[in-house]
Structures are given as C-alpha cells and as structure tokens.
C-alpha cells in the first residue's frame, strides 16, 4: 500500500460514521477574469493582447458538530490563454478536525498562513504557492494546500501547532505552453520543460516535512515562533548543455526558524517578522552553470555545481493605520545572504518596500485600493490600483490594473522590469452564493 493510499484510508476512516447529527454549511462562487495588455512606455508589443483569461467555480462545504468539523473546498477553472491543460480541477482543502478542551487534531489537505507580513513571504513557508499567474487578486488565492496532520494544543493566551506533512507539494510553476510568465522562468531556446523535469523527493516516511508554531496572545502584543524542516517549494534549476540547453532540477531540503509579532500602539499596529534559513540551497546563475560545464568538459569531470548553500536572513517591519475607514499599510523588508555570492544571480542585500491604501465607501459597497511593491535596489516596481463594487450582496465586479515598471538604471533595470510586457488592465466578476 502506498503512502498516499494509506493516508487517504486513514482520512476516510476518520470521516466515516461521523456525519450524523451534523450541521451543514455551503457556500460557492462563480468567477471570471480577463486581462488586456497595455503599453508600458518601452514596449507596446503586448498592447491589446489578452494576457489573462479564466472562468471557474468554487464550492465550500462544511459539516460540524460540537467537537468535530469536516471541510472541503474545491475549484474548477478554465484558462483560455494557455495552449494545453486548460481545465484545472483543484482540491484546495479536504480535512477532518476533531478536538476537545485545549486540543485538536486536523488531518487532510489544509491551508495555513504563517507570519504577520502582507504579500511578502518571510516566515510563511508552510504552504506552497500557485506561481503560474502573477495576477492573483490577492496572495491568499495563490496559496496551495498541504497534505498534513496538525495537532494543536491551546489555552487562553497560548497555542502551539505541530505539523507532520508526509506528502510533499511543490509550487505550481508557469510551465504550460502559452503562459505569458513561462518565458521569464525558462529562457528561449530551451528544450521543453514540464513539472516532470524536476526531480521530486520520493514519497517515503523519511522524506516528510515537520513544522511547529507557538503563538502567545498577550495584552501588549501577539508573538509567534516558527520552526520548519522540509523541502524547498521551488526547484533549484540545472541548465545542461546538449543539443539544446536542457532545464532540469531538484527539490532540496530546507530549514527555517522564524518569529513575528503584532504590537498595538494606540491607533497603529506595528508588525515585525524575521526568518533565518541556514544553509539554504540557491540556484547558481545560468551563466555560471554553463561556464562550469565547459570547464568540467575540459577537465573530464561529468558533474558541476548547479546550486550552493548559503545562510539567508529576512526581516520585515510593517505599520497598519486605520483612521476613519481608511486602511493604510506600509512595509519594509530586507533579504540578506551571508557568504560568497558571486555564483548567484542576486545581490547580497535586497531591499523591498510595499504600501497599500484602501477605503470602502458608499456603505462598503465600493472599495478603492492602491497597492504597490518597490524593489529598492534598482527601483523597479509593481503598482496595482483597483476598484471593487458590490452590485448586489452576491455580485461583485472589479476593475484594476497591474503596472510593472523598470528602474532608471539602464544596466540593471530591476526585478519587475522582466514583467513590464505583462502590464495589463484586468476585469473580474464574482457571484457568491
């Protein structure tokens, strides 16, 4: 019996026979979204092109009684931009939770968010992400569930979660033909790359992931401590010279210790978050890999280093301010790598700032927001204005834009310069029931 089958059997054994005398909740939504390319001042090649297009449905069902809950969240979507596998059926969550006074056990596919940061991943490493679309309307929609058992003990002002994740789930990468993000991840001229190009860890007990979160809710602050030992959600990429350049890769082990805190100071909420990744696997730049291969060929060696391990530290400070119905958020994040970095395609310190301003008006029927992220090393940025209107309590329509802008330095235009051809105006409609 495979690990996955055993896990499924255990899950259904827990669920069966417990749906009697339960209360039920159901909610669902239908959605459609489209994005049209807009000129960015440097390149109008995508102007008017359909860069984003999907429609779909999502359903959540929960059954619960006093000490247990069963929950499932499933989505079905059709992407009419990509040229293959247009239809995606995703089981986002499927779990059973049972507990008593001060403890609970949750088994199944589940979503969890760690950390106090908004839209930036510092200590929030537990759940993988759907990176196949950069236009997810919020960070939460890009999160993928983990197949895990979570044991929680909690008291009045303290809670601890212990995770065992026996089945590894990587990030979803933009590898489908026709996905506008693919060319940013995989250079042109490379042989076809699919998810199977990257070697996942075997399903085995010794390949499980483990995580712990301890959280204290104190009068002056909320404080959390995190620990994680598992696998990188993105593969380290290996660029091999052959008839073509071939891209493969592996998922490597990763460890993290982190903390966060939310501190109310009058009308302001101060958020802090930090994470340390000891000896983290980092992809050697494509240029360095190709040089290494040529050297290896000359010296008769067969293999070359396609990744190295360095300690990475991230720190974030954020402020939330909510005067008179406004929500104003600002964050600064620093990402630092310790040790020799000349083989890496990154700088030692990466500085990032985000801001968000939003306001609901007309009795919270219209929400206006402006969010942005600025990569401060080279001042490239992404700006996202949007307006969401509740036509009725069930129907919402959104109009927004994503502007990706390069920095002023002609030699290094910054992270978001690679996406400037993907600047677009988006329209989204959601019907909830």
């Amino acid at each position, binding site marked *: 019996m495979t690990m996955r089958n055993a896990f499924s059997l255990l899950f259904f054994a827990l669920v069966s026979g417990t749906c009697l005398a339960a209360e039920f909740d159901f909610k669902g939504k239908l959605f459609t979204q489209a994005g049209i390319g807009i000129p960015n001042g440097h390149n109008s090649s995508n102007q008017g092109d359909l860069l984003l297009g999907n429609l779909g449905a999502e359903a959540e069902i929960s059954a619960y009684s006093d000490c247990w809950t069963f929950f499932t969240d499933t989505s079905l979507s059709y992407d009419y931009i990509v040229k293959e596998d247009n239809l995606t059926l995703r089981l986002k969550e499927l779990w059973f939770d049972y507990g008593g006074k001060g403890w609970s056990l949750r088994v199944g596919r589940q979503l969890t968010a760690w950390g106090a940061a908004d839209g930036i991943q510092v200590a929030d490493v537990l759940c993988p992400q759907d990176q196949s679309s950069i236009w997810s309307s919020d960070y939460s929609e890009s999160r993928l569930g983990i197949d895990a058992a979570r044991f*929680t003990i909690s008291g009045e002002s303290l809670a601890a979660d212990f995770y065992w994740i026996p089945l590894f789930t990587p990030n979803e990468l933009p590898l489908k033909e026709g996905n506008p993000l693919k060319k940013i991840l995989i250079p042109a001229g490379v042989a076809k790359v699919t998810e199977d190009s990257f070697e996942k860890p075997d399903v085995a007990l010794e390949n499980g992931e483990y995580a712990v979160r301890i959280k204290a809710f104190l009068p002056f602050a909320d404080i959390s401590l995190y620990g994680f030992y598992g696998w990188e959600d993105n593969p380290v990429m290996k660029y091999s010279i052959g008839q073509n350049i071939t891209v493969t890769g592996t998922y490597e082990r990763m460890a993290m210790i982190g903390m966060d805190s*939310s501190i109310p100071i*009058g009308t302001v909420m101060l958020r802090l978050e930090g994470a340390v990744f000891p000896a983290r696997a980092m992809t050697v730049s494509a240029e360095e890999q190709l040089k290494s291969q040529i050297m290896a060929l000359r010296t008769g060696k067969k293999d070359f280093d396609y990744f190295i391990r360095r300690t990475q530290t991230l720190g974030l400070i954020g402020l939330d301010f909510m005067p008179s119905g406004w929500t104003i958020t600002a964050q600064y994040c620093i990402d630092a790598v310790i040790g020799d970095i000349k083989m890496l395609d990154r700088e030692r310190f990466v500085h990032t700032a985000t801001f968000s301003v939003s306001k609901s008006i007309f009795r919270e029927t219209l929400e206006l927001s402006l969010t942005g992220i600025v990569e401060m090393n080279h001042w490239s940025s992404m700006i996202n204005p949007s307006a969401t209107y509740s036509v009725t309590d*069930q129907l*919402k329509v959104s109009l927004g834009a994503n502007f990706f802008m390069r920095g002023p330095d002609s030699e290094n235009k910054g992270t978001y310069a690679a996406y400037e051809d993907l600047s677009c105006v988006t329209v989204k409609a959601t019907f909830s029931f």
Partner: protein
Amino acid sequence: MKKTESTLRFSRLAMLAFTVVMGTGIAFAQELTGYDIAKRADEVDKGDTSSYTATMTLTDKKGAKRVREVTMRSKDYGDTTKTVIVFTTPKDVAGVSYLMFEYDDAPDGTSKDSDNWLYMPAMKKTRRISGSSKGDDFMGTDFTYEDMGDRGLSKDTFTLLEEENVAGVDCWKVECVAKDKTEKNPRRIVWYRKDSYLVQKAEFYDRQNNLQRVLECSDIKKIDGIWTTGKMYIKNVITNHSTVLEMKDIMYNIPLKDNIFTVAALERGTSR
C-alpha cells in the same frame, strides 16, 4: 394677648412653610443625576453570558435593501467582557470572525483600549487590529463598532435634561457629551426607560452639532429575566440611509466554554 397668639400662629405657619421648602429641597437632592441614570443603565444585568443572532437590513435612499447577519456570543469575566462575532451573511464574508476583549474602566476612571482580532477565512489568518477605530461603520450599517459594544462611562459627561414620555413609555432624557471632541458623534441625547434603564431612543449629533442619526428601540421585553431590546431602527437623517437590527435566538446565562473566546478557536472555526 391677641398679638401673641397671631405671632405664634404666624410662627407655626412659617415653620411649616420652611419645613416644606427644606423637605422639597432634600427630595430634589436625592433625585437621580444624568450620571446616575447612565451608570444604572451601564450596570443593567446583561447576564454572565449571552448569545444571539442579529440580522441587519440596510435600506438606502432609493429603497434598495441589503442584509447582513452575525452571531454574537459574549461572556463577562468581571473586569473583562469577551465577545466573539461571526459573520454569516452575505456569503462572501461568511466565516469572518471578530474577537474582542473589552475592559472596564479602572477605579480612577481611566479607560483601556480593547484588544481585537479579526479572522479572515480567505486569508487563513488571524490579524490583530487596533481597537481605536470604533467610530467606523459596522459592516456598512448605520451602527458603529462602538454602538455594537460597550462605551465606558468615563468617556462622557451626563446631564439630565427632563423627563419625557416616548412611545407610551416614561423616560429620562439625558444629554451625553464626549470628553474627546474629535469623536464622530461627540454629543448624544439618550432617552432611558424608567422601568428598565434600557435605551428607548437616541439622537446622535456630529461635530458641527447637526443631528446625524436617530435610534428607536422596540420589542423590549424580559427574556430569561433580563430586559432585552429585540429591535433597533437607526436612520442617518443626512444620507437618508437606515438599518433595522433584529435579534433572535436570544439566550442568557447559558454555559459558554472559555475556549470559544480564544484566537485558536477563531482559526479553528469553532467560535461559531
């Protein structure tokens, strides 16, 4: 002799008049002040625990209606009251939960900001939020977050204006003026029912002292021995928008587990 008798009679009348006047003065001194009434209203028995479902119907000036529904559970721990509110309608916010710890004023009158957490099921995350934005509208209704919770007595000065009959009920009319003039409604006129100290009616004035909102309460009755307002109608007279709040499934002094009022319960979804 006659002069002595008339003098004595006059003296007795004077004594009687003096006694009546002094007695009346003493009686006035023992009548309730605005603060006394507000204090008694604040101390009205609300039960050690309470649970109810509140349905809010919002009506705009064109008559279009929207519905919001929440379940509220509350437990009094003496100097702290813990409340959990779970949003159930509309569907796109169903499951959003709000946990609030409200603290009584200290003996010296100083107040402490409440501690608040908001759980957003779409984000799978609980966020601690500032408790100082209580003047904001609650879910787009004409009620504010402060209207939905408790307001400490130390925040206002109270003046008894007069006694008045409102909708057939004898009331005290009390003016409440906020010490913080920057508040959304720094002046309120509140009609407290004499039979129960519950609010029968209230007027809310903005910073320019213009009438902004009018509240009318009805369906006031005893449930489990506790005076309860079953229906509140509030109208913003400036925007012509109104909200009707109706409470059902009201229960008091039922056993509510302490672990319902924890952040862990919010995230687990067991605060419902």
